[in-house]
């Protein structure tokens, strides 16, 4: 191997790099935690823990000092490389070090699980009143434009323009969506993550376009990201007819109606919905407060899971006892006291391909530590026994 490559490998596999990475991980955790009060949980998560580099802290030191620092994604990626190279590949292989090798493998598994969770997990929530049944869950921070075709029994088919295309329609960019075989094409523009739709002229001086007497007024994103109300402009190009303009807004009370070639469509901007391969029916929700406070002591949902193959299966969902099925995990998330006898239970639903990987990695790490400590203990006992025997012989 060339000397330069060897040097790079030595640095990447070295202990000093590991110590440095852990130090900057501590800094990112510290600053990211403090930042949550200024920029909200989601933004802090993106900025400090899912980035390659961030500029911090939020409150400049001495009023002006802020630094570019390595973000969580960069730190964890380098740590994985460091562990693989230094803790697995270059580790001197012997039975006495087998436990360490297994431990490092477990840590790498944990890091990979985190990355898979970040890149591939889909999460949201499903809210149910007692007696209600749902078969889709709603994303917390992703949106979509849904185009529903009206048939004899209401909305019968639905096409969805995904979050990425919607967000791409911001600034001077647009997104144009066509729908297989449909006489309709939509061009989205002027996407704003948080907005309100106001009658034109109510906010003098706004530069937004006016459609049917209304404009989109962009607002600063909310610190609590789930309170954002995104909006965008839309133009429907209809086959054999003129274009029709409108505004889509998450806070709209009714969808936008468009007719094209004798078909009727309802178009709305909404939070992204994920279908479930089964449905969940809330049978009973129970909760209890700590006496004299509004702090819940415990709360749980008794649900029935309908998968269409047989009798519905009862399941209790509560803290640390989620519902696991078909790769989905539903946790008891929160509830809302509506002030009436009916309570609204919200389950957080996560589809995470790496759902159980952290557990497996912990098992691997535990096995590694056990192997290492047992090996050490055995060697110590053998050495002490030999010393004692040698003393007795003398």
């Amino acid at each position, binding site marked *: 191997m060339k000397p330069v490559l060897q040097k790079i490998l030595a640095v990447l596999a070295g202990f000093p790099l590991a110590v440095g990475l852990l130090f900057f991980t501590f800094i990112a955790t510290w600053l990211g935690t403090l930042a949550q009060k200024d920029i909200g949980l989601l933004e802090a998560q993106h900025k400090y823990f899912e980035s390659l580099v961030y500029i911090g802290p939020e409150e400049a030191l001495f009023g002006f000092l802020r630094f570019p620092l390595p973000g969580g994604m960069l730190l964890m990626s380098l740590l994985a490389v460091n562990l693989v190279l230094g803790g697995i590949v270059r580790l001197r292989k012997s039975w006495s070090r087998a436990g360490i090798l297994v431990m490092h493998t477990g840590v790498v598994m944990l890091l990979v699980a985190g990355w898979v969770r970040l890149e591939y997990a889909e999460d949201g929530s499903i809210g149910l009143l007692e007696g209600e049944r749902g078969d889709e869950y709603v994303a917390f921070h992703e949106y979509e434009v849904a185009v529903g075709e009206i048939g004899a029994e209401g909305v019968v088919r639905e096409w969805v323009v995904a979050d990425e295309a919607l967000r791409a329609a911001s600034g001077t960019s647009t997104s144009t969506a066509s729908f297989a075989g449909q006489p309709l094409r939509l061009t989205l523009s002027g996407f704003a993550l948080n907005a309100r739709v106001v009658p034109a002229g109510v906010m003098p001086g706004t530069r937004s376009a006016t*459609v049917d007497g209304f404009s989109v007024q962009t607002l600063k994103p909310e610190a609590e990201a789930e309170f954002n109300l995104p909006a965008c402009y839309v133009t429907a190009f209809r086959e054999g007819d003129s274009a029709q303009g409108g505004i889509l807004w998450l806070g709209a009370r009714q969808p936008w109606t468009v007719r094209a070639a004798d078909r009727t469509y309802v178009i709305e901007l909404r939070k992204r919905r994920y279908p479930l391969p089964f449905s969940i029916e809330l049978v009973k929700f129970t909760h209890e407060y700590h006496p004299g406070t509004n702090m819940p002591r415990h709360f749980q949902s008794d649900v029935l899971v309908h998968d269409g193959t047989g009798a519905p299966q009862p399941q209790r969902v509560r803290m640390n006892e989620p519902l696991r099925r078909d790769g989905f995990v539903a946790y008891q998330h929160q509830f809302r006291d509506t002030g009436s006898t009916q309570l609204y239970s919200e389950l957080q639903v996560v589809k995470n391909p790496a759902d159980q990987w952290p557990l497996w990695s912990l098992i691997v790490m535990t096995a590694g530590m056990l192997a290492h400590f047992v090996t050490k203990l055995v060697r110590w006992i053998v050495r002490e026994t030999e010393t004692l025997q040698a003393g007795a012989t003398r």
Partner: protein
Amino acid sequence: MILSRTLTPTACAVLLAACGGSDRIVDVQEARAVKRPAPRLDATSAERFAPPRSESAPMGGSQSGAEPFAYALPQGWAKLSRVPMRDINLTAPGEVQCWVSVLPPSSTALAHLARWHGQLGLPAPDATAIDALPRVPLLGGEAMRVDLRGADGTKRLIASMLLAPARQVFVRMEGAPDAVEAQLAALRRFEESLREAPVVAGGDGSDEPEPAFGWTVPPTWKAVTPGPMMLQQFDLGDEVKCWLTLLRGDGGGTENNIARWCGFAGKAPLGSDEIEALERWDVLGARAIYVPLLGDDGKPGLVGIMIPLATHTLYVRMSGSSGALKGRLEAFKTFCTSLERRT
């Protein structure tokens, strides 16, 4: 109207594309079979965008767009982020919490009272308890006033219940008994100040022509693209910005706006005496209120004036670090006093 609906967004899309932005092409092949009742078809824009109950904030008030009522924030109180079931969420000195909830008519007064009794570890009230509750004015109606102390003596709950056919409004205050006692007068003032936020319907709601203004820009100020709601914005260097906004009417109220500005500058809201004592400038023929909110040099600051006009209120604000703002106060005053009506 039809022309506006058709051509404006089309023109926007074309212009945006022509300005150098990109156009992402999406071909949605997959259709999901669903079965849902048809929503209301052909709703007008005014119907679609009429503010929902929880979004009808006063124009010019909080930009969170979430509070259903306008109100005056008592001195020493602060706004908190909205949380579920708290349409207005406030905190008062002594770790006292106060919030306003608006609910659909979902339950009886006795059921609400019983729930609160349960939360405080008190025995369930009997049916006559409701008749015994005193009444207080709230939002033009008569609300039932509940005053409960927890069984262990550590907590006091005060609630005003306004149960109308269309909705139920609750003002709640909770905290340690002594701390709640100290806030009773402020709570009363807060309740008295609560009023419906103006409902935005179609059209701009006024036939008054929109005023226009002229001004003299100080030599070092540089005009930059105005943000939303701004008439004009200037970059003054050192991350100091100055901008003008114009709102209809009183723009949500002097006290509310000053409280919001104080929040921005990291200061406690000014009381009415302090607001009364603020310097006044003669601008555009009106007595403009000058609001300097400055701290230590490194801390964020805000300097602004509110100019009440016949149909609108014009605001000029300058923000940045307090140290940078202090060096620009003269230029700010020169700019403000140079303002003139153009129509």
